[in-house]
């Protein structure tokens, strides 16, 4: 789509000036009114800063300042610690409309979503008549360049007004200053929400926001790990359009159909290629350049009929369940939510484009009970603030019956109400937006069903949490009964009768009549280097110390017969297992299993395990399961349903 608008613009440039183009399309470009304009400008600048830092492996430290003058004119300053921009490029990037680097890359990035930073410069120039200023530094031991520029709207070229060098303390980075007409009073809330949202899906970024009144808000970094670097990939055969297929075939260097398929598409190995050719009834040695339209059609159809591996997810950079949970937790601190659950779907494909859905639910605390749940939508780590009603995530959420998960929803359809925040994040090499304003994701079947699956998984976790809460309360009651009340009853009655206090073991067993499992989780800070962690890129393994999550699980047999069973503790994928006692029977990526020896009545076992590679409180609830015992005998663990 961005490509389409670029071509469109190129055509039009001959006829109309960019100023005119901008004026006509102001609305879809996000500058429709002074409130939107403010948010869009912040967004363009912050997105670029994040992209630039990530691309060069720098943990982003971004500074946003708004100074407001009277008559609606605001000065916007955005500064980053990124790689900087070479002097020669600055006029192009800031002074030419639609001069981007990302329009053609099949790779996840934010850039795809904006009209570009030059639009902000143009908007500022059109509304205030003032020039923009860019300071940039690319090397530690060299001075920074300072460029003042305007846009020549007739030629779509930049006018460099002034250029100089200056000393800048930063090792590298970019600072962008622009004056725009904007409504700060109204826009403030959106800017804040936008930055907070950015911080939630970019836990590796630190953002400082300075408001016109001088107050500063810090959105803290919650992880030192940069997102995995995404890499460009080839199109996936599923859903690649016929036209594109033909075009690729005409331009390929391959002489044979089989090598064409293998080299131009992702996920095509020998076996799949053979299967596709057979299905299409095409000779694998055909020269792709000589194929007929009918043959392409057959090939195109065959793609759909053969099971082809999902595209490599290398090109995607999802946030990950643990990190989403952590940053949601961090950003919702004042709400003190009751719990946060997240779910991450495996990567999937629509029309040959890989995508991946992540979802999260924040529940309870001081969130309002009567309002609709708040929806937070993100695409490639960029918050989507407008057009919620048109977004596929909204319709996916609305189609789930939330009533059985403790939320209100009239007739089981629509956005539920209750004390919750729903987060949806889609990562994709190409986000299918409904329009150029890039605020809503189109109604694509594959995406909708993945979003539904992600939320169903969250909902199941919510349900499990609620069950667990009820069970915990019951357990606690029983515990209170046997540890506090019953001994008191015994003491009092024996005192009254002047008799010795009777032993209570057997009565306790009778009252409880369960196998009781209770766990506690503690965190210990380690001063040494962290244990190796799957969350780390080798490149970014430079953290000082980390946390060890220590779980102690106590199993007590309060049945009147000996019990022997297996216990499973589910662990997060990102975690690395440290010491475990007693000796486990099996360890996988997802769980630890113990075949416990026989426990006689009133006897107890302590099970202990350590997890590394997680932050404090990333893991705050054990998920325990039992096997080879009637699950109704057990309080504190569910039935193991298999791997």
């Amino acid at each position, binding site marked *: 789509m961005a490509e389409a608008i670029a071509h469109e613009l190129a055509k039009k440039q001959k006829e109309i000036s960019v100023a005119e183009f901008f004026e006509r399309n102001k609305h879809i470009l996000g500058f429709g009114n002074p409130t939107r304009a403010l948010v869009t400008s912040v967004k363009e600048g912050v997105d670029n800063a994040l992209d630039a830092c990530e691309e060069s492996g720098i943990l982003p430290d971004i500074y946003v300042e708004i100074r407001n003058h009277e008559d609606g004119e605001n000065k916007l300053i955005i500064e980053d610690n990124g790689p900087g921009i070479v002097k020669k490029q600055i006029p192009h990037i800031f002074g030419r409309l639609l001069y981007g680097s990302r329009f053609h890359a099949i790779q996840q990035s934010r850039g795809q979503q904006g009209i570009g930073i030059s639009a902000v410069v143009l908007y500022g120039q059109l509304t205030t008549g003032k020039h923009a200023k860019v300071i940039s530094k690319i090397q530690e031991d060299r001075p920074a360049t300072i460029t003042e520029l305007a846009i020549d709207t007739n030629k779509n070229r930049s006018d460099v007004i002034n250029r100089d060098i200056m000393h800048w303390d930063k090792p590298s980075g970019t600072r962008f200053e622009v004056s725009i007409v904007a409504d700060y009073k109204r826009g403030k809330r959106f800017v804040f929400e936008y930055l907070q949202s950015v911080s939630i899906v970019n836990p590796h970024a630190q953002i400082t926001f300075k408001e016109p009144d001088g107050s500063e808000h810090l959105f803290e970094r919650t992880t030192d790990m940069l997102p995995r670097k995404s890499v460009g990939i080839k199109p996936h055969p599923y859903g690649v359009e016929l036209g594109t297929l033909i075009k690729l075939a005409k331009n390929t260097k391959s002489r044979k159909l089989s090598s064409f398929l293998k080299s131009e598409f992702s996920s095509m190995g020998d076996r799949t290629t053979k299967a596709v050719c057979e299905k299409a009834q095409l000779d694998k040695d055909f020269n792709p350049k000589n194929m007929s339209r009918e043959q392409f059609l057959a090939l195109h159809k065959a793609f759909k009929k053969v099971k082809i591996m999902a595209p490599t997810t290398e090109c995607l950079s999802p946030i990950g369940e643990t990190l989403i949970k952590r940053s949601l937790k961090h950003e919702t601190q004042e709400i003190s939510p009751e719990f946060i659950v997240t779910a991450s779907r495996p990567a999937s494909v629509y029309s040959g484009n890989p995508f991946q859905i992540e979802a999260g639910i924040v529940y309870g605390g001081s969130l309002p009970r009567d309002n609709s749940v708040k929806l937070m939508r993100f695409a490639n780590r960029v918050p989507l603030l407008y057009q919620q009603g048109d977004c596929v995530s909204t319709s996916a959420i609305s189609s789930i019956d939330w009533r059985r998960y403790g939320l209100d929803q009239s007739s089981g359809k629509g956005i539920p109400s209750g004390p919750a925040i729903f987060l949806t994040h889609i990562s994709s090499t190409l986000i299918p937006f409904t329009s150029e304003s890039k605020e809503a994701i189109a109604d694509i079947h594959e995406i909708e069903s993945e979003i539904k699956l992600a939320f169903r998984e969250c909902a199941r976790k919510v349900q499990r949490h609620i069950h667990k809460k009820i069970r915990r309360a019951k357990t606690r*009651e*029983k515990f*209170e*009964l046997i540890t*506090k*009340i*019953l001994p*008191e*009853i*015994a003491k*009092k*009655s*024996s*005192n*009254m*009768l002047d*008799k010795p206090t*009777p032993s*209570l073991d*057997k*009565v306790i067993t*009778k*009252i409880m009549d369960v196998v009781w499992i209770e766990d506690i989780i503690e965190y210990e800070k380690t001063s040494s280097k962290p244990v190796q962690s799957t969350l780390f890129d080798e490149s970014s393994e430079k953290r000082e110390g980390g946390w060890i999550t220590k779980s102690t699980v106590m199993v007590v047999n309060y049945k009147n017969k000996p019990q022997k069973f297996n216990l499973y503790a589910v662990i997060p994928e990102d975690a690395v297992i440290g010491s475990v006692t007693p000796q486990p029977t099996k360890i996988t990526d997802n769980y630890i299993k113990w075949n416990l020896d026989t426990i006689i009545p009133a006897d107890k076992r302590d099970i202990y395990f350590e997890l590394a590679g997680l932050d404090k409180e990333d893991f705050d609830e054990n998920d325990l399961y039992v096997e080879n015992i009637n699950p109704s005998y057990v309080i504190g663990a569910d039935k193991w349903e298999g791997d």
Partner: protein
Amino acid sequence: MSRDYTNVINSINSIASKVYNDLESSEIPNLKLPTRTKSNIQFDDKLNVWKYGKNMTERSAKSLDGAYMMLRTMYMVDFIKDMIKANKSSTLREMYYISEGWDLAKFNSQPESDSLAEDLEVITGCMREDFKLRPEEDGARVIGNLTIEEVTRNKTKKKIHCQDDVGDSGYSIPYNVEPEKISFKGADADFILAIETGGMFDRLVENGFDTSNRAILVHLKGQPARSTRRFIKRLNKKKKLPVLVFTDCDPWSYRIFGSVAYGAIKTAHISEYLATPAAQYLGVTPSDIENYKLPTDKLTKEDINALKSELSDPRFQDSFWKHEIKLQLSLGKKSEQQALAKYGLDYVTETYLPEKLAEMGIKK
């Protein structure tokens, strides 16, 4: 005055022993007592009152609430034992405040501790008074040609005439009305009239109804206290005077009558001490609403539910009550004693009561 408490101590100890023995033999401790609900009261032909039936409720330490109740029970019986030993007594309210110091066993509210005291009566067959517990409520009032001899707090006997020796508010019934405390001497009257509201009691006093109609007037003060019911019962037995109950015309007032005449559900274990089977309902009846064209209010939802529940209450199964309750439900209305003032302040004493008394064959 020092009475023998051996039996009380024995029954209290038997509760502690039951719990202790359960624990010792590895049983979950439990105590059984009759179920104290409407569905479990039966008419006792011998005693002529309503008593608890055979349904038993188990208080078991298996649940947390049950265990708490049991611990509280242990504390309460221990406390009672201490009071007996020290020859002290306390009000129910005092006991509630004392329980504040019982740590885990403390009550959440006074109704809880009052109700446990009742449970103990039910379990042991003793009376609250045996446990040295007395109620808070001040006694109801009596006016009429009746002489009472009361043992005062300085242990002297004092005769009180309930017209000549009292002011307009009458003789105040003490919480203990047993023979050791009061005895009835002379009574020159034709009947006892038990009145629900203070306003009506005062009206009859002002109009001189006690002298003009040879009546002993007793103010019930709403749902009557145990001592008031016991007082009426003893007076009825001793002096062979008919008892007439005069209340508002609504379901709650019928329950007041029920507790005077048949025994209350909450205290069915001691109905034979408290209930006066010979008591009769004088009015105001739903028929009176029609016959006397009394001002009315609409029945509320709660009123209707209470009336319906009375239709299934074993105590209200005779044809009089069935008829009146059904009539009231169809009228959809209720009325008050004082609604009779519609026809003037003297109407109740000049017309209504004489007519009703004649109807009931008490007066000609």
